[in-house]
């Protein structure tokens, strides 16, 4: 379905519903970030955040996700002007950068596990894995969504008429990015 239905307010119904969904996601991540902050510094045993968090590595992940957001807006702009060749390229780049981020998170989690930090090791482990794991699950959903759009574009089923579908996927992707912006500051930089 490419054409959405306008509401009585003159806005698109699918876009309105998606913004409401993103609003509810703010509350979900707000509660997870609250939990992390409340239990910050309450761990009775290590490893502690300053012992294992790798700032240079996470800075690269942050850069990667920011560039994926840029790729996403370039994909949308290309599809809106009917340049499907560029649209396909940028959609793939966005999904690829998302996969790179996920790969980094898998490496980080396994590295922490080897360092002795499990989900039930201490309060830091519990709140850290739940917060960043929930974000990672959102990135995974986003990557699957983007790859689905990319395959549709390859089959010729995605064009300027479906720009709204791409825009909504983009809203989700950018939201995942802004959540990471907050997590990077609150969890990694403010120790």
């Amino acid at each position: 379905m490419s054409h959405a239905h306008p509401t009585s307010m003159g806005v698109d119904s699918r876009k309105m519903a998606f913004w409401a969904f993103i609003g509810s996601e703010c509350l979900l991540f707000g509660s997870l970030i609250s939990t992390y902050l409340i239990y910050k510094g309450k761990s009775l045993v290590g490893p502690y955040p300053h012992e294992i968090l790798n700032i240079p590595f996470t800075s690269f992940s942050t850069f990667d996700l920011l560039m994926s957001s840029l790729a996403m807006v370039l994909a949308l702009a290309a599809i809106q002007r009917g340049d499907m060749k560029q649209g396909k390229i940028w959609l793939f780049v966005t999904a690829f950068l998302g996969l790179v981020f996920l790969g980094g998170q898998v490496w980080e989690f396994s590295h922490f596990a080897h360092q002795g930090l499990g989900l039930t090791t201490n309060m830091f482990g519990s709140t850290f894995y739940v917060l960043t794991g929930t974000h990672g699950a959102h990135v995974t959903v986003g990557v699957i969504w983007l790859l689905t759009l990319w395959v549709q574009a390859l089959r010729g089923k995605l064009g300027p008429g479906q720009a709204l579908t791409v825009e909504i996927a983009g809203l989700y992707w950018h939201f995942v990015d802004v959540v990471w912006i907050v997590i990077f500051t609150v969890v990694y930089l403010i120790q």
Partner: protein
Amino acid sequence: MSEQGGAGATHATTGTYLRVAAILVMVTLIEVGIFYVPAFQGILVPLLLVLSALKFALVVMFYMHLKFDNRFFTFLFGAPLFLALGVVIGLLFLFYGSVRLRAGG
């Protein structure tokens, strides 16, 4: 511009997207840089929060197009966002406030 708030709503140009990306990268570099500079340790937390809020606002305004889109979308996003912020601040205040009271009592 087609239907307001639809797929064809006016968005930023490619040049603007690239400039926003450059600012986002620069702010991230500044964040990481001040993290390692001991002179900033005293004001590190407020400084990082301001820089993070700047990045957040740039992505939401330009990449999520809230600057150009229907104001109702800003309300749909902003209202829960401020509610979430209130929850974070309220819970922190309640938790640390209760710890202080117990310690004082």
